[in-house]
């Protein structure tokens, strides 16, 4: 039996025709729908952004209410800067995920967009993760240095150097773990999807490349 033969029986109407879906059924059905990876990523991003903003704003307000002076300004400024960076990050991620959820284009165009978008998203996430630890350590050190500089007895150069060296050492060890850990985690979560998309794009390209 060939595909040609199957075509004839494929298009025969089903014995039991599917009942029409009503508006209420459709809405109920969609409420239950969990969606695929992109939908899950969108939900997670909204959730993360909500939790982050719910924590950051009160923290900033409470902190400024109880602390004054140049160090308090430095702390608040750092937190505000971090908030701006994170807001930009979530804005970019949500915009990208919204683009990835679009399914009206051709199959190849859709696969290309998904592949490029997922890679862009992971690259963005990876860079942000790598920048977080050095940024945090730098912030800790600058707070510590600020406190030392404000000491009435004058700052202790040797202590500053020792803390700096200690943070550098701890930072190097932690950063190595973060690099390998993040790569492993990203590969585990998204590697199979990227490999699959890449393979599918190659499949669509294949005949044109070899036969033209």
């Amino acid at each position: 039996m060939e595909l040609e033969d199957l075509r004839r029986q494929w298009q025969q109407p089903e014995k039991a025709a599917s009942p029409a879906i009503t508006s209420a059924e459709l809405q109920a059905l969609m409420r239950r729908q969990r969606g695929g990876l992109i939908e899950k990523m969108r939900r997670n991003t909204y959730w993360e952004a909500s939790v982050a903003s719910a924590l950051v704003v009160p923290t900033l307000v409470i902190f400024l209410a109880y602390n004054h002076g140049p160090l308090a300004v430095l702390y608040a400024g750092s937190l505000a800067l971090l908030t701006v960076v994170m807001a930009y990050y979530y804005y970019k991620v949500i915009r990208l995920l919204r683009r990835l959820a679009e399914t009206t284009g051709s199959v190849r165009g859709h696969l290309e967009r998904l592949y490029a978008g997922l890679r862009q998203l992971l690259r963005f996430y990876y860079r942000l993760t790598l920048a977080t630890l050095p940024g945090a350590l730098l912030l800790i050190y600058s707070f510590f240095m600020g406190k030392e500089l404000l000491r009435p007895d004058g700052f202790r150069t040797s202590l500053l150097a020792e803390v700096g060296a200690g943070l550098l050492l701890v930072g190097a060890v932690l950063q190595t773990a973060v690099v390998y850990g993040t790569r492993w985690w990203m590969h585990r979560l998204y590697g199979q999807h990227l490999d699959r998309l890449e393979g599918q794009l190659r499949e669509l390209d294949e005949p044109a490349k070899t036969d033209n």
Partner: protein
Amino acid sequence: MATAPSAEFLAALHDYQPLVRRVCRLYCQDADDRQDLFQEIVLQLWRAWPRYVPQPDAKLSTWLYRIALNVAISNLRQRTRRPASVSVEDEAWHLAQPVENSAYEPEETAALYAAINRLSDVDKAFVLLYLEDRPYDEMADILGITQNNVRVKMHRVQEKLRKLLVHN
């Protein structure tokens, strides 16, 4: 989803529901997976519907095939992990129920379904559009490749199916 589906959307969904079910039938062996895929396709159709603009040279079915295939092929979800209670062959038998006036034995039809199930998701898209009797220009439009590419690929898919049937 904030707004209720429009009457036009429900009417179109009713008209094209068999088409969506056929896509799900080709892509999912498991009944639960099939239902999940059907819901996901309907969800995407509903989301895209407000942006659908009827054009004289573009059919609604083309738009619909694009969305259904995009969802089915790029179904970026963890594949069902539960142990398969029904094998591919059993499911192929289920799909190959005797059809009135069919010149072929159910065994032959089941073997062909089982062979199709072994194809990749992209190859299944070619098979589906072929079974749906879509012309090459529409296939090219749906898949986003050239007509020549469609011809070559279609030929290769048929060759693959022949080989799979011989090995079975």
